[in-house]
């Protein structure tokens, strides 16, 4: 697959504030990439720089291998859908959808043809004469998407497209976006602060925090192999459990100790270069630990704290030393009564982080 978009050391400063800090990544043609992060992390600024609404302080943006830094906004042939849709409220649906084509001086017959095709594609064929005031939020969203898609942009950028919708509509619109994704094979860049949206729609996720790209990988890897405690905590519900402790050895077995309580570690390549006494944080995803009979090999003990049944599954909260852990287990596996339980993490999904930096300990060769 060809590389559609490439960001090279992209940087944006506002005075002393670094909104985007030397960000580099590549997006393949036809892929959907999610820019995920808390608000103020620089994701919208990145989006605006790609579109051309903001000028980078340094770095470059390449589309199809060509730098677009010198091309003014509006000539880059990229489409942006705004969070608040930004439909032209005084124009009909048709007027909105025609706008980009009229700007491009397409003939009226061609315009009508394309607009009608696009209207039925986004499900607004019978509403072309309506004014936005008569439309629902999700219909306005469709107008905004249709208005952009009809100009056949190289890249479709969506800024928080679902956050102004109610939850019912949000599900429906997510399916709709999925359909658009499949049918148009558009390269899509999708800005969101909602990890579920990112995980369900994107092929790749770029997690950002405080202007810095934390991890850029496939959705699967970002979820299962977080590169930092930030990524681990930002994705997943409940978020990843973190247990801070000291690395030790006992009888050839490496383990993490916190206030005398111990978690035995499986044999991991990452541990090779780390010596005993290092401050290490163990990361365990809520659904990657099983409740096993007390004393099972590789398990560790924790005090049962609370149980929240959620239908087929239950969230079990347990206290290990002075850390509360949440694990999600099938309802059938929920322990009865109270007292100690034993937890067995899935060895291959266990993550170790350097406590100080929050960065994942990697196998020397791989990192």
């Amino acid at each position, binding site marked *: 697959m060809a590389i559609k978009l490439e960001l090279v050391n992209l940087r944006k400063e506002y005075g002393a504030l670094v909104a985007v800090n030397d960000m580099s990544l590549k997006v393949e043609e036809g892929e959907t990439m999610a820019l995920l992060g808390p608000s103020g992390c620089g994701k919208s600024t990145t989006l605006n720089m790609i*579109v051309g609404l903001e000028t980078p302080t340094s770095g470059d943006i390449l589309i199809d291998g060509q730098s677009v830094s010198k091309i003014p906004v509006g000539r880059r042939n990229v489409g942006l859908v705004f969070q608040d849709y930004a439909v032209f409220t005084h124009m009909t649906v048709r007027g909105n959808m025609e706008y980009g084509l009229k700007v491009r001086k397409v003939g009226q017959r061609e315009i009508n043809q394309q607009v009608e095709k696009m209207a039925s594609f986004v499900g607004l064929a019978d509403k072309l004469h309506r004014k936005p005031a008569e439309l629902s939020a999700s219909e306005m969203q469709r107008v905004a998407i249709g208005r*952009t898609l009809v*100009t056949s942009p190289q890249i479709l950028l969506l800024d928080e497209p679902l956050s102004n919708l109610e939850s019912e509509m949000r599900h429906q619109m997510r399916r709709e976006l999925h359909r658009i994704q499949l049918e148009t094979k558009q390269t899509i860049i999708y800005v969101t602060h909602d990890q579920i949206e990112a995980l369900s729609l994107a092929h790749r996720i770029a997690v950002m925090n405080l202007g810095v790209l934390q991890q850029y990988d496939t959705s699967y890897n970002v979820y299962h192999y977080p590169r930092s405690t930030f990524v681990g905590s930002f994705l997943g519900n409940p978020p990843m459990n973190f247990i801070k402790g000291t690395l030790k050895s006992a009888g050839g077995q490496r383990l993490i100790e916190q206030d005398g309580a111990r978690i035995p570690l499986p044999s991991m390549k990452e541990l090779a270069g780390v010596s005993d006494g290092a401050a290490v944080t163990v990361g365990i995803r809520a659904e990657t630990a099983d409740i096993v009979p007390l004393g099972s090999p590789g398990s560790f003990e924790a005090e049962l704290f609370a149980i929240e049944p959620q239908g087929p599954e239950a969230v079990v909260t347990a206290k290990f030393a002075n850390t509360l852990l949440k694990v999600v287990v099938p309802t059938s596996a929920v322990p009865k009564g109270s007292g100690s339980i034993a937890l067995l993490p899935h060895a291959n999904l266990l993550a170790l982080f350097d406590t100080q930096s929050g960065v994942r300990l990697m196998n020397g060769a791989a990192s």
Partner: protein
Amino acid sequence: MSSQGRVAARGFNPNDKKYIGGLLITPIQILLTALLVFPFVLELILSFSEWSPVQGIGLWEAVGAVFTEDLDQGINYSVLITEEPRFLEALGRTALISVTSLVLEFLIGLGLATIFLKAFPAKRVFFTALLTPMMIMPVVVGYTWFMLLQYTGPVNQVIGWIGGSQPELQWLNTGFLAFFAVVITEVWHWTPLFFLILLSGLNAVPQNPIRAATVLGASDWRIFWSVVMPSMKGIIIIAFVIRGMEVIKLFDEIYLLTRGGPGTATETISLYLYKLAFEDFRLAYAGSAGFIVLIITVVLINVMLRPIRYQLLEKR
């Protein structure tokens, strides 16, 4: 709430909503009834007579005569409409001056407002300076332009510099030029208000549709006319209605500038009524004309206010 109910049971409650609301509105009702409604009714009655204070007949006698004596009632109205071209001309002239001034004020105000969307040095100083004309009272405005437009005044001199030779323009004594003198004065005085209203409107235009149009590739010019101006529609109507309400009353400036002259070249409806009533002392006749003007104004204002009635009344 319960204490309110108890007091209400006794019949009178100083804390009652209706009572307070009514009491607070009373002074303005009295003031406006005495000084607005009453004269208005008086005017209506007198307009059916031919009374003038110089006839030596008292006011109440004249009022009584309207009801008791067999006057040719309504003659004032038929004369005004059929035999008095000056009245209809004054109406037309007022409309012409109003429309010309408002259009010019709108265009200049809009141009200035768009400049003030950009950044430039000493913006605040320019802003305040440009508002100056609006703060000056109409009489002084009229007088100042009277000085400027003198035959020997600086306006002629500057035109002379540009044109090469001294033009001998009798601004205030030539019908056509006097009309323009009035318009220029009015435009000078009130363009700042248009500018202020339009600037506040431009600043309130939502930014994302503009950005959306930008990303779609539209030029600034196209964005201005296809996105910005349509969303300014409400505020533009407000500006025209508010200024329209004022400009049809135009009197002070013209009184000092030309007194409606030369001849009747700048005689607006207000000046016409003034001359009838206070130079010719034909009070009843002027009252009839005034009454027609009132009716026209009421209809006109109601039509003009319709689109902004909601905005004026509702909290936003």
